[in-house]
């Protein structure tokens, strides 16, 4: 049984301009210990999918429906508040994009790690503190005790991101959702944090969902890739296969538009046009207005995700 089993997830929420259809029929299955990258541009629905999986969106105003939304056997759609609190942090943890705003400014880092441990176990205060020190040590923080007694504003972004990872891993979750964990960080710090996440994932044997807009991050860290666009899955498959032989026109265009792939000052292959309007998404395949090889069908009916090879699937009329 997969650890994460999401079938036909829809998420929408009202905004100034109208009802935002953030996710429109997303399915995702993750086995224990597997690492999956969800790639997409802003508005593709990748972050919202994670937030919905942990039921972290306020309902109302958000509306979440799915045929299945199961984390480690717990039906997240039917779960009570207490059930949710037991799953979050214990079964599934999350690391967020901006470490600077992820900690409560009036408590020490130590306090916030310790309260996480104590929310899920009956560890005594002193045991929890020892565990917190060990965790900070594990995320390669040099002087764990002094960091433990620091307040968030006293630490750098990179240090805080390490602390957030330590906090997320404090109860040995079976799966970690990392939502753009390095986007707010400097290049060299980003590389260090990616290495750290990869190492810890292997060490703890946990599942990993790496949400990112950066194909480089995906190429560095995960086994399998899910490409999202306009709230839907465009293509998914093993990471090497996706990079070697992208099949969906959007995946291909995305890979081609990465700067710096070849030496020399030169124009890039850009994807003309704009991301779809989430309030009023295009009919049919969300990518068809920008797609170079669109067929007549593409504008009317959205293609279903179909297998296109070993472990691979894509939603494209041109591939069926």
């Amino acid at each position: 049984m997969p650890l994460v089993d999401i079938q036909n997830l829809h998420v929408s929420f009202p905004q100034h301009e109208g009802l935002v259809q953030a996710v429109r029929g997303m399915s995702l299955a993750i086995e224990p210990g597997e690492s999956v990258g969800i790639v997409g541009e802003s508005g593709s629905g990748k972050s919202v999918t994670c937030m919905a999986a942990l039921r972290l969106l306020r309902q109302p105003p958000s509306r979440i429906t799915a045929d299945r939304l199961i984390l480690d056997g717990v039906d997240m759609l039917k779960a009570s508040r207490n059930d949710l609190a037991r799953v979050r942090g214990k079964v599934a943890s999350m690391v967020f994009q901006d470490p600077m705003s992820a900690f409560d400014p009036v408590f020490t880092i130590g306090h916030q790690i310790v309260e996480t441990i104590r929310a899920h176990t009956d560890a005594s205060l002193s045991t929890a503190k020892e565990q917190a020190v060990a965790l900070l040590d594990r995320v390669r923080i040099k002087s764990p005790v002094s960091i433990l007694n620091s307040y968030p504003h006293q630490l750098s972004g990179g240090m805080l991101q390490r602390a957030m990872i330590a906090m997320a891993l404090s109860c040995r979750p079976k799966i970690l959702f990392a939502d753009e964990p390095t986007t707010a960080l400097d290049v060299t710090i980003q590389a260090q944090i990616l290495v750290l996440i990869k190492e810890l994932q292997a060490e703890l044997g946990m599942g990993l969902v790496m949400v990112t807009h950066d194909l480089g991050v995906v190429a560095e860290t995960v086994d399998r890739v899910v490409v999202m666009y306009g709230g839907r899955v465009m293509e998914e498959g093993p990471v090497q296969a996706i990079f070697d032989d992208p099949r969906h026109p959007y995946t291909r265009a995305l890979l081609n538009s990465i700067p710096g792939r070849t030496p020399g000052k030169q124009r890039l292959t850009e994807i003309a046009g704009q991301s779809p309007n989430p309030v009023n998404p295009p009919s049919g395949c969300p990518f068809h207005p920008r797609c170079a090889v669109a067929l007549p069908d593409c504008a009317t009916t959205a293609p279903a995700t179909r297998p296109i090879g070993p472990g691979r699937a894509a939603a494209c009329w041109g591939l069926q």
Partner: protein
Amino acid sequence: MTAPVLELRNLSKTFQLPRKGGWFAGYIDHHAVRDVSLTLPRNTILGLVGESGSGKSTTGLMTMRLMEPTSGRILIDGADISALTPAALKPYRRQMQIVFQDSYSALDPMMTLARIVAEPLHIHGIGTPDDQTEQALAMLDRVGLHRSYGQRYPHELSGGQRQRVAIARALILRPKVLVADEPTSALDVSVKAQIINLLLDLQQEMGLSILFISHDLSVVRSLTDRVAVMFNGRIVETAATETIFSDARHPYTQGLLSAIPVLNPRDRRPRRFLTAEEIERGIPRLPGAGTSPALVQVAPDHLVEAVAG
């Protein structure tokens, strides 16, 4: 030989930060930019690369005289503008423009796009109001926004479109120099490529020279002719862009390069990270270098910070 379109000579900026420990503890000097010298030849793009705190944005602001340098000189077409009064500076303002990362806060939300783009013409009193609007619409069209966008407001646009408007406004005066401070950092991949292409096209067409400030070496590789790498307020290496990628000499440049995520999972590799102290200790030792770190020529057109050793 004609003078480069932009030249920075020994530019420095020191901020005084209050020292900890009370009222009379005084200030400590924070050297945000130290002794930076750069030349931007006509019709080229120079990448100024570094991480947060390296002093690259401060350098950009000083170049525009949006921040006063502590010392050093700024030359536009050979003319020293570092000591000009605001009134004397005004004609030079036409020749240099800046684009920022966050175009949303840089655009007046109460103005239509046509007015935003026409405003520099208005400020410099160029043309009749009708002329100004016409030029603005043509410029919008040039950056890829249909003329009908002229009546819209900034909040109606996506991030990439706003960045196009910011570029249109910067270029409407036909400046010689454009300072672009992380203009693509907040953009999505597909939009980033569009803006990079736009800058490349405009540079060609308008004979523009661009100081492109960025932390993103991949973007820099596709866009620039030359690169200057900044670390701790200093320039530690400058060379032609491909030389930086193929033959980086300074440990900080090497570290930056190795931090770029791979572009194919096959190239995953173990990495070693240097601390700031290790970088300072690892400064190349070259015969002929001075006792304190300074830029030394290691190949034609390739300067690296080095000390005698």
